[in-house]
């Protein structure tokens, strides 16, 4: 019988890798990504030679492909130990367990933000506060996580309205930590409208940081976040100054939430952050939860509109950095870390296996435990099915909940349809909860997924910048990667 030789025997064999056509701008438009996360940008002709075993083994590109784990030489060097080390390091977060613990201490709030993801309870009254008993239990859950580094984040409503609850939780955790000796960072997400000296004293004592929302200059911020006195912006800025005066310049960070009105003002938003002296900005699109979903259309915009906005904002931001002001965009920095390093990401929202439940836990004001912030917001939309259990159950039991198991089934990008073949999967993540919220299906159809659209759009944009950007752009990107000022970066170094 005739046998067709379908595999030509050459000196090298292929290792598993994926590829993607980036654009038609440049002849190096094929992105190759290895299992390790290493990448190469090559012309299409080379891809053909590579798979047809026609590569010139004396060429530099052959050595690049070998060194970056796209090919190997049978009988030659065994690359598996290095590949295993890189892969293990990238996924190292798995063995750490939940590191971000969110305490929703109250639902009370004085704002009526149109895109709010939580129900708003009136300011007075403690009906929607976390009970002392539940707080105690939740503190125990925290230490059942094996992670040596823990972040405790207080959310709400407006958490400062339940400051006594915060105080109790911090003190309980600090007491337990005398023995445990973990590295713990506390953050309060707040509008900063309800600061007091007592609160600041306490924050100083326990090294608590603040995170606030600053949507942009006054007209934008106030339009997005109405308060009875229409002065949300003024009071937040006043709060920022007050925190800084007391606790230091870097004790408060800020992020934006972008409405369709925001999309018209990329430069103004960035200028506001520069004016307020921040060193990082987070340009976050709206998520499909809470009031955003049910609000008027004027809030909402398509993901492609967001991406257009983001590219404009990023270009402007880079020019601001080149001018000498350090202001990094946090999602871009995260993507750069994923693309350029073999290290595990600290960001729970872009992980595979998913971050919800495994990397983060939410202790709700009513004593229930959820795998993520977003799943709690689904609750506000009438969906309670993602509850893991009660704060009184031990962590091991909560993580054995059928919810977790099902999330895992849909939560490993390398196993999802569409993702498993995508060249960007080493740098991306899985988010079954968002897919469920938007599409009603936790696996999600990739072609209609705004999660996919966002990440593909931004990742391909980053790759194009890394390929095409001039030395000054590279230096800004490197300054974000290494968190150094441009003064300490006389050269961007080797690229690709």
């Amino acid at each position, binding site marked *: 019988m005739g046998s067709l030789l379908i595999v030509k025997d050459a000196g090298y064999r292929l290792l598993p890798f994926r590829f993607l056509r980036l654009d038609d701008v440049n002849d190096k438009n094929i992105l190759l990504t290895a299992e390790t996360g290493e990448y190469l940008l090559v012309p299409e002709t080379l891809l053909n030679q590579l798979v047809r075993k026609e590569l010139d083994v004396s060429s530099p590109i052959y050595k690049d492909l070998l060194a970056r784990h796209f090919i190997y030489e049978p009988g030659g060097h065994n690359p598996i130990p290095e590949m295993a080390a890189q892969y293990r390091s990238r996924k190292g977060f798995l063995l750490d367990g939940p590191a971000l613990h969110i305490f929703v201490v109250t639902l009370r709030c004085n704002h009526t933000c149109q895109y709010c993801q939580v129900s708003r309870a009136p300011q007075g009254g403690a009906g929607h506060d976390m009970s002392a008993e539940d707080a105690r239990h939740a503190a125990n859950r925290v230490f059942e996580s094996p992670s040596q580094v823990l972040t405790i984040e207080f959310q709400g409503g407006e958490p400062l309205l339940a400051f006594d609850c915060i105080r109790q939780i911090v003190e309980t955790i600090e007491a337990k930590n005398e023995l445990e000796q973990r590295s713990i960072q506390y953050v309060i997400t707040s509008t900063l409208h309800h600061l007091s000296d007592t609160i600041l004293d306490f924050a100083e004592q326990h090294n608590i940081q603040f995170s606030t929302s600053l949507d942009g200059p006054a007209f934008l911020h106030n339009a997005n976040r109405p308060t009875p006195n229409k002065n949300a912006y003024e009071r937040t800025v006043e709060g920022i100054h007050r925190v800084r005066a007391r606790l230091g310049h870097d004790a408060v960070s800020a992020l934006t939430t972008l409405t369709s009105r925001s999309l018209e003002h990329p430069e103004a938003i960035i200028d506001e952050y520069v004016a307020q002296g921040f060193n990082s900005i987070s340009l976050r699109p709206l998520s499909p939860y809470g009031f955003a979903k049910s609000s008027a259309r004027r809030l909402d915009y398509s993901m492609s509109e967001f991406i257009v906005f983001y590219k404009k904002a990023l270009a402007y931001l880079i020019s601001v950095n080149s001018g000498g002001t350090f202001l990094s965009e946090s999602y871009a920095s995260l993507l750069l870390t994923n693309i350029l390093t073999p290290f595990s990401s600290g960001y729970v929202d872009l992980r595979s296996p998913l971050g919800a439940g495994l990397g983060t836990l939410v202790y709700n004001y009513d004593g229930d435990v959820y795998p993520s912030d977003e799943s709690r917001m689904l609750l506000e939309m009438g969906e309670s099915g*993602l509850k893991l259990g009660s704060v009184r159950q031990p962590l091991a039991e909560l993580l054995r909940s059928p919810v977790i198991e099902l999330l895992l*089934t849909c939560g490993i990008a390398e196993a999802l349809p569409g993702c498993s073949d995508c060249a960007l999967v080493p740098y991306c993540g899985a988010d079954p909860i968002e897919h469920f919220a938007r599409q009603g299906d936790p696996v999600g159809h990739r072609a209609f997924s705004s999660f996919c659209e966002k990440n593909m759009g931004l990742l391909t944009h980053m790759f194009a910048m890394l390929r095409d950007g001039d030395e000054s752009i590279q230096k800004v990107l490197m300054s974000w990667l290494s968190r150094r000022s441009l003064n300490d970066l006389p050269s961007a170094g080797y690229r690709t």
Partner: protein
Amino acid sequence: MKLLDRWKMLIGQSMALVPMIGSPMVDAGQTQLASSDWLPASGNTPPAFKNTLNAKDAVNIYAAHRSHSSHRSHSSHYSSSGGYSAPRSYSTPSSSSYTPPPTSQGSTYGSGLSAPRTAAPSNAYGTRPAAQDLSALVRRVQLALMVKKYYSGAIDGVMGNGTRGALMAFQSDSGVGINGRMDTPTLNALGIVIP
């Protein structure tokens, strides 16, 4: 219908869901990365790299911007070469006073090693017989007295009349107690350091 049931339908599963962490791997060739107590298996595990970037790893924390502080010089002033140039006329020692070990398994070097010293920066004094220490000390005293021109006898390590006399003369001139003994003030005055 409960959410989970809806999801299971969507995914088309009727499988029993088994905890993923801690179950023995079916494929015999694999090694588990971690057992159910979260601890990594020891042995031939792939290294897990720690982050070398200046940025902090913590979630939701926007690390304070720090200007890069330049590294202290790593003190390796070592050049690339072996550093040792064999002398031009070199012959292997004919009879070494160090016995090369027989080629046997196991380390043979343990026996020749000195015991750790009893006190830090102390030396052999802790492990030598006391009489030998005393004799060495007396010699140092005799030497010191000779250098200072108080003594011209033999440096024999014996506290005889000649040595004692010289010592007392020195003690008298130096303003320390004249007792003919090698006490601390006297040794200090002679420049002798005893740890």
